[in-house]
Each structure stands twice: as structure tokens, then as C-alpha cells.
């Protein structure tokens, strides 16, 4: 379970034009379930997910991970609640690497290198056996229908292909939580359905899924266990 209490994120805090993108959000997100965040553009969905994913620290408030960061910080018992907002930077890195797989709104693939290299990027600092991780990456890319593109440069991929590369990259370190930001924004409805099928596989595998979306295919799906609606940085409904 991921527990947020009174989480606030204010950009440019202390400057002339502070902007509160996430405002006093208190929320419990169940583990091994699919949670969808919806709401108008600018309502703070991406910001909230970056706070959960340890990519930025909240201005105030607390975020607890219950039993999710187990193997990221080996000295902690898995069931223990981990308060991430006060952790030192190097623990956050370990959590980003092991606990969360992030599929970005703009994919954020590294340009100029191959599909395979992009997928391997999260494994470089771990120093794992390169043959093992490469086999894993190739298998994942093949299962996503990208076998023909292993050595292609990511610059030439179609939107749907780029997204699948981003998915493969998010999964390479086998994270407990998958965060997908507007995953279907660049996809047609058939590809969107395919994406949801993939998510259902991950859910069956016990992953915790957090997805933001404007897309009814996502938030009206049977797969969605919880839908959180946001407006102006606040949670307006949970269903």
C-alpha cells in the first residue's frame, strides 16, 4: 500500500510566483491493484506521480510505502512502512531503480541510441551480468513485438513502438510498482486496448499499477480498481 498524507508540492516556493501543483492530497493506494488518476490537464496528476515515484520531494506531507520497497533497501524488513520523503538521496535512487518502473508521458527515450540500449539503461549502474540482463531485455522486447527493432535507433520508431520501448525499459529491473503517465495518449483505440491487456497481465503478476489518463478506455475499464479524480491539485473523488 502507498499512503499519502497532506502531500503538497509548490513549485517556485519562496519566489515571486509560487505555484501549488498538488494541494494537501491524502490518499491510500492499494498494492497489486490498478489505480487510475484522471482530471483535466494541469490538475497535478503527473506531479503527484513524480512525488510517489521519488523523482521529486513534496514541499510538505508524508508518503509511506508499505511492503513495496523490500529489496531496494535490503536492511529493511519488507512489511515495514517506509517514509520516503525524508530519505537521503541515495536511498531514493535505489527505490527509483528497484521499486518503480516509470513510463513517461513523453516516453523520455534517450535519442541516438538503439532500442536495446535504451532498455538496458537502468541496468548499467547495477553492474549485473550483462549477458543475463541483455537476454531479459531481448525477451521482453520480443514479447512486446519489437524483435525486428532491437538494433534500430529509437529516433525512427512510431509512437506505439516508442511507448512499448518505454514499457520494456520500465520493467527491466522488475519493479513492484509500474507508473504510466498518459500511456494511451499517442495510441489509437486498438493499441490502447492492447496496452490495457498488457496491464492486466502485470496486475495478474501482482504488480501495483498507477496510471494517469483522460482516456475512457483506461478509466472506464473493468481493470481499474480505483479511480482518483483530481482538479487544481486536489483530489475531488475516489471511487
Amino acid at each position, binding site marked *: 500500500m502507498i499512503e499519502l498524507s497532506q502531500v503538497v508540492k509548490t513549485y517556485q516556493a519562496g519566489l515571486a510566483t509560487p505555484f501549488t501543483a498538488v494541494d494537501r492530497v491524502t490518499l491510500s493506494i492499494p498494492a497489486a491493484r490498478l489505480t487510475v488518476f484522471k482530471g483535466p490537464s494541469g490538475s497535478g496528476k503527473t506531479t503527484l506521480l513524480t512525488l510517489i515515484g521519488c523523482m*521529486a520531494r513534496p514541499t510538505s506531507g508524508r508518503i509511506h510505502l508499505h511492503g513495496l520497497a523490500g529489496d531496494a533497501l535490503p536492511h529493511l524488513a519488507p512489511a515495514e512502512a517506509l517514509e520516503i520523503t525524508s530519505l537521503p538521496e541515495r536511498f531514493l535512487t535505489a527505490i527509483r531503480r*528497484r521499486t518503480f518502473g516509470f513510463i513517461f508521458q513523453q516516453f523520455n527515450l534517450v535519442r541516438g541510441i538503439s532500442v536495446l540500449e535504451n532498455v538496458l539503461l537502468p541496468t*548499467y549502474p547495477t553492474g*549485473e*551480468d550483462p549477458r543475463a540482463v541483455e537476454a531479459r531485455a531481448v525477451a521482453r522486447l520480443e514479447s512486446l513485438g519489437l524483435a525486428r527493432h532491437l538494433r534500430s535507433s529509437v529516433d525512427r520508431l512510431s509512437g506505439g513502438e516508442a511507448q512499448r520501448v518505454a514499457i520494456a525499459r520500465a520493467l527491466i529491473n522488475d519493479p513492484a510498482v509500474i507508473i504510466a503517465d498518459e500511456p494511451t495518449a499517442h495510441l489509437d483505440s486498438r493499441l490502447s486496448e492492447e496496452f490495457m491487456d498488457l496491464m492486466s497481465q502485470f496486475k495478474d503478476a501482482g504488480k501495483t499499477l498507477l496510471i494517469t489518463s483522460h482516456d475512457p478506455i483506461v478509466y472506464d475499464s473493468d481493470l481499474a480498481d480505483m479511480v482518483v479524480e483530481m482538479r487544481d491539485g486536489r483530489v475531488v473523488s475516489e471511487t
Partner: protein
Amino acid sequence: MRPSLQRYRNILDFALSSLLRRKGRNLALISVYTLVVFVIASLVFFVQALKREAHELLAQAPDMVVQRMVAGRHDPVPLAQVEAIRSIRGVDEVQARLWGYYYDPVFGGNLTVLATEDAALAPDAIWIGQGVARSMRVKEGDLIPLRGYDGQSTLFSIQKVLPESSELVSSDLVLMAPKDVRALFHFPEGLATDLAIQAGNPRELPTIAAKIVELFPDSRPILKSEILRTYEAVFDWRGGLMVVVLGSAVLSFIIFAWDKATGLSAEERKEIGVLKSLGWESSDVLLLKFWEGTVISVTAFLTGVLLAYAHVFFFSASLFEHALKGWSVLFPRFRLIPALDGYQLTVLFFLTVLPYTAATLVPSWRAATVDPDAAMRS
């Protein structure tokens, strides 16, 4: 492989492929960098080689040279002084030297013509240095005409080209019989250009010099140690100039490096953010940037040093000819003898590689220590 070692390897591999990704930009960077290293290294090699040559030259010079001064100018010395000086206590040997400069209008250079008593020298023959043979395009057995004081040419046969010990010492030398030197320059009998003196104990040289001046008040003894000091002063002056040139080259390089490196492109900054969001630590990002910078600077350093080595030792520092024309007064055209000094290379390495590495690391460090989210949105 151990995971920590594998991490270094992975990141190095990625650094190399990153460099290839931005081929154009990095090639431009390496070219400018190489050019700077080349100029600095050429200067350092050149000055150092000149110093070495000069020391060799002086090693073969006599302990003391005695000239005669007339009206403040250097004038021939009467041979009668030889015996008088030889009888001074502490003097081992006095040799009357007969020499002069010969200007060759055809190839436009000065030769040093020196009389030798060597019995192996055939009549009407001369021995010449390598440099003379080169610039006159002559070899053993050829005949060359030398224009005398009266405009009449005399033919000499080249009996031998002197072996190359140090080019500075013998390069522009023409050795001929004393009578030929006197005939060529119309040099009066009974006079010599100067006297070369060897002393058994170099510490007695100042006393000997004082006695010579006492005997012949119009003579001017020049001690080898004084020449050495003069040379050193000249070199140090040149060396001082070099320091200024070097300093400004290094400075402009630092500015260049700083400018290049601080201007992390928006794309690079975003990439750092992406890497961090994928679980790279700041130290991983820095290691990546460190490898990138090291590959660039070591490549440029090695290329620049090799080019400078070729330039100075194989092409006689031809690019500096104009800037350093003054040297030709002191030295003939010659080829410097290759030698590398580890100390100089080390200094050069630290002067060029360190500032660049620092200049690349600082901005990356700044980008790598902010939240990945902020680095990605910027």
C-alpha cells in the same frame, strides 16, 4: 566480473556510444583541443630542445676565449701573445683560432669558416658540416667556388662531410687550411681571430683572466661560465616570454573549455534527468561525464603531443619560423635532436587535461544533483 567493476565498464561503454552520438560536436571539440595542445607542446619541446643544444655547444667550448679590443670593437689578436699567455701559471694550453663568417649570396646564409691544422686535410680541400652540404646541395668529391674578399672565386674540393654529432656544433661549419682562410678573407699573417685557453683547474680561471688583462690591457677574456650565464639569461628571457605565451594559451583554453562545458545543452540536461529517473545515482552520471571528458581530452592530448613532436623534431618547428626568427642569429638552420622529457609531458598533461575535466564535471554535477523531475522539465 565483480558488479562494481562491471558498473565502470557499462558506464564507459555508454560514454563511448554517447560520444559517437554527437559525432560532429565532439569532433569539433577534439580539433580545437588538439590544436591548443599542439601549439603549447610545440613551444615547450622547441625551447627545451634549444636549451639542450646550447648546453652541448658549450660543453665543447674552451674554458676561456681571449679577444682583443680596438676602439671598443673586436680586433685580431697578435700571435706574439700566445707564448706570453702560455707562460702564465695554471694555463694548460693556448690555441690561436683563425675563423670568420662567410656570407653565401647564392643560398643566402652565413657559414662559419674555421682554420684547422689537421694533417688529414688535403691541399685546396675543405671539410663541411651537414647543414652546408644540405643547403648548397653538394656531396663529397664536389667542387664549390667561394668568393674571396676581392670578389675572385676560388674552387675548393669537398673532401669530407662532417659526421653529425650535434648539428648546432658543426652544421654550418667549413674547415680549411689556415693559409686558405687568410687568402679568402685577406687576413694578415701574424694575427689570429681570438685565443682559446684551457686551464688545468677551472677555479684559477678568474686569476688567469686578471693576469692576461694585466699583461695586455687591450684584451678581453671571456669565461665559459660567463657565456653560460649569458645564454641562460637569453633562454630565460625567451623562457619568460614562453611562460607568457604558454600562460595565455592555457588561459584561453580554460575559457574555451569552460564555455564548451558549461553550455550543457537542454537535451543533455534532460538526458541527465532521464538517467536519474531510471535509477542512476548522481555519481553514476558524473562517472559517465568523467569518461566522456577523459576520452575527449586524452585523445586530444595524445594527438596534439604527437603532432607537436613531429612538427618540432621532423619539421624543425617550421610554423614558428616567423615568430622566432631571432633564433637564426644565434643558430643556423638545424634539425633538433628528438628527446622527450617526462616532467614536461606531465606538466602539459595537467595544464590541459585537468581544466577541461573540471570544466565538464562542474555543470554536470550541478545538473546531476537536482531532482530528476526538475532536470527533465527544464
